[in-house]
């Protein structure tokens, strides 16, 4: 088994910041493993501005923000970047295996930083009953389709959830000529940033319905309509308030879940409700020498905060490795 000093899993803003900070602290050998074909993580599909206001004191798009770090990472001879490399296994003594086209590699790491990001909560997790036609997408998937592939998923959309991703996608779809019929939110207020509520909905005349919930999705092959009802302060349906909205698309934006399946596999403690590592301090896990940062550690609103905390993770790993000696 090959030995590597520090192995970082995930090449989004968290993994890149951790790699650079670990190097700055004196770690000589960093292996950065990224499943995708490029660095940047979720930022690559966030083509809207709003990144970097804290870290760079200027407003960048997601890809611009990511590219600044990617350039530094690629320029550093002490960081080996391995793309299309998917970590499938982690053991408690930091032995890990990854697959890449043409090979399965086994590595013994001195320290590991998990920077694997989040996945989206899905329709199935709320769960929304009804039929299961085409046209129901997690909002982040729709974002990837529109922004990275130029694929427009539908023509008339209803969005479930008013977090930032739901709001940003409402605007994105409207800009692509999709009729966004409503954003449905079960709470009394939006979890998203106020600027997003204003810029993404109000400016586009998209109705935001607080204290409403989707009770069913209808349609045999493709979505045809959704059923909606008003709820009271205890989230109970209010009789007589049910109505339907015709649409061919439902975007579900009901939160993110940290990806900590590797940590769980290694025997690390993971909170069953939030799927975050159980530990006393940010970036730590219950396993010595295994760290978690960025969205894998907790769900962040701002990429800038991910960068700040992940740099700390890089330094923590360096300290664990006894660097500088």
């Amino acid at each position: 088994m090959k030995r590597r000093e520090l192995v970082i899993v995930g090449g989004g803003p968290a993994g890149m910041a951790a790699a650079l900070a670990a190097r700055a602290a004196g770690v000589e050998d960093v292996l950065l493993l990224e499943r995708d074909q490029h660095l940047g993580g979720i930022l690559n599909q966030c083509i809207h501005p709003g990144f970097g206001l804290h870290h760079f004191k200027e407003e960048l798009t997601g890809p611009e923000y990511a590219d600044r770090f990617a350039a530094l990472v690629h320029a550093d001879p002490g960081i080996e970047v391995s793309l299309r490399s998917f970590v499938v296994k982690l053991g408690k003594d930091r032995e890990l295996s990854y697959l890449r086209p043409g090979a399965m590699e086994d590595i013994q790491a001195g320290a590991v930083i998990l920077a694997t990001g989040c996945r989206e909560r899905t329709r199935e997790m709320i769960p929304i009953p009804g039929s299961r036609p085409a046209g129901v997408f997690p909002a982040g998937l729709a974002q990837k389709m529109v922004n990275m592939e130029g694929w427009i998923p539908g023509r008339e959309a209803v969005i479930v959830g008013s977090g930032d991703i739901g709001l940003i996608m409402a605007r994105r779809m409207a800009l692509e000529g999709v009729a966004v019929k409503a954003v449905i939110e079960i709470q009394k207020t939006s979890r998203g940033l106020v600027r997003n509520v204003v810029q993404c909905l109000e400016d586009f005349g998209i109705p935001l319905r607080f204290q409403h919930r989707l009770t069913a999705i209808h349609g045999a092959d493709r979505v045809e309509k959704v059923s909606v009802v008003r709820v009271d302060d205890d989230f109970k349906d209010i009789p007589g308030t049910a109505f339907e909205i015709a649409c061919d698309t439902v975007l579900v934006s009901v939160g993110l879940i940290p990806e900590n399946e590797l940590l769980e596999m290694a025997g690390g403690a993971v909170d069953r409700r939030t799927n975050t590592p159980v530990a006393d301090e940010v970036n730590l896990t219950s396993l010595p020498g295994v760290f978690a940062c960025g969205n894998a550690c907790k769900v962040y609103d701002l990429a800038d905060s991910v960068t700040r905390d992940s740099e700390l993770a890089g330094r923590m790993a360096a300290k664990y490795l006894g660097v500088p000696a």
Partner: protein
Amino acid sequence: MSYDVIIIGAGVTGAAAARELSRYRLKVLVLEKEAEPAFGVSKSNSGIVHAGTQNPPSSLKGWLCVEGNRMIREELAADLGLHFVQCGQLIAVFDLADLPELETIKAEGEALGVKDMRVVDRAWLDANEPNLGPEVKAALLVPTAGIISPYRFVYALIENAVKNGAELKTSAKVAGIRRREGGGFYVEAGGRVYTTKFLVNAAGLRADEISAMAGAPTFTITPRKGEEYLLDKKREHIANHIIFPLPSKTSKGILIIKTSDGNPMIGPTAHDTGDKDDLATTEEGLAEVLAGARRMMPSVSKGDIIAYFAGLRPVAGKDFIIRHESAAPGLVNAAGIQSPGLTAAPAIAVMIADILKKQGLPLEPKDQFHRLRQRTEHLFMSSPEEARRLIAKNPAYGDIVCRCELVSAQEVRDAVRHGATTLDGVKFRTRAQAGRCHGGFCTTRILKIMQEELGRPVTELTKRGPGSEIVKDERK
């Protein structure tokens, strides 16, 4: 086009019949209305290879189930390269006063030929099924029950039938059937007319309509809905057996089901519905399933659910209807194939062949029948050594597309090359999109591979056939 036998429906019944008939020198055609096989009842069930218990000893479905179970266990799983796991089944009682009922089930099962059953006590359960709740007092252990992937079972049967010369036409809905003078039928499907000497009706929920079309309106089908809820693969080891509660008068009850792909499942409900297209899940169904499962295993939680679906059992009375219809000479019905139809299918197929023979169809064995089918490769089922060997053979097995279920680009390509034309077809064959993120990470990649393999624009790719397009427009 003229055939000896046309089979209507490419579910497990039709696919098993096609494979059985492909042993003989016959021209066989399977007509399926959906875009791919296994898109009917056969895709949405519990995947249990039932042992045969809980059927009346005199019933047709009882002995066909026991024989189907034997065939899958002893021959078919190995011949067709299927992942069959003989995990065994437990029928649990919540009250020791119900023990005599377990003895009755055992005696009835033995009358049908089910072997090696025994009642196990709480100490045995504590050692072998540690997550059971305190309410469970004892159980009947039925070791011959097992699990299989229902759709991959259908795909394997139909692929093997086609390899042996049977023909399959998908997107071919039978719209009209006319009797031919001098015997046989004209069958109109997908804008073409086929002639055949014999017709096998394996049309699932629509079998009553097909039988009537052919001149034998002898039964009706009432769908009985079953909702099922799948749990995260992380909970793979909550149960070591398929666990049933003692059945009530109306249903087998809510089960905790191991699946051959790893995700445990809870369900199914059993409620009659008038609508053959009603595949909706309901809030009531979820509540019923959760309550039933938690009674046996309190640690099952709503948060573990990653997917759900509903299936409709095609019910025509209490038993299967497998017979030649004298009102329509040449028509063999395989109808009312409710549970345990998945298990019984191979035995039903043999019975269909027998009936056809009695009706005058000569069954002459082919010189060469290809009994074996090569196993399709699945990384998620491979040991590290096997994975290494696969990747060495073909680098694309190391190119991961679906990160939740560990599916490589090569497996997606293999699926399309084996006949998948839709996203669901790829999912059923490979498991890509079937995990906890529901395709959030991999859908775009799969669509791109399908575009390449099928040579079609993305706007023509569908979830499960025409009308279920995924992408409406492409930005110029």
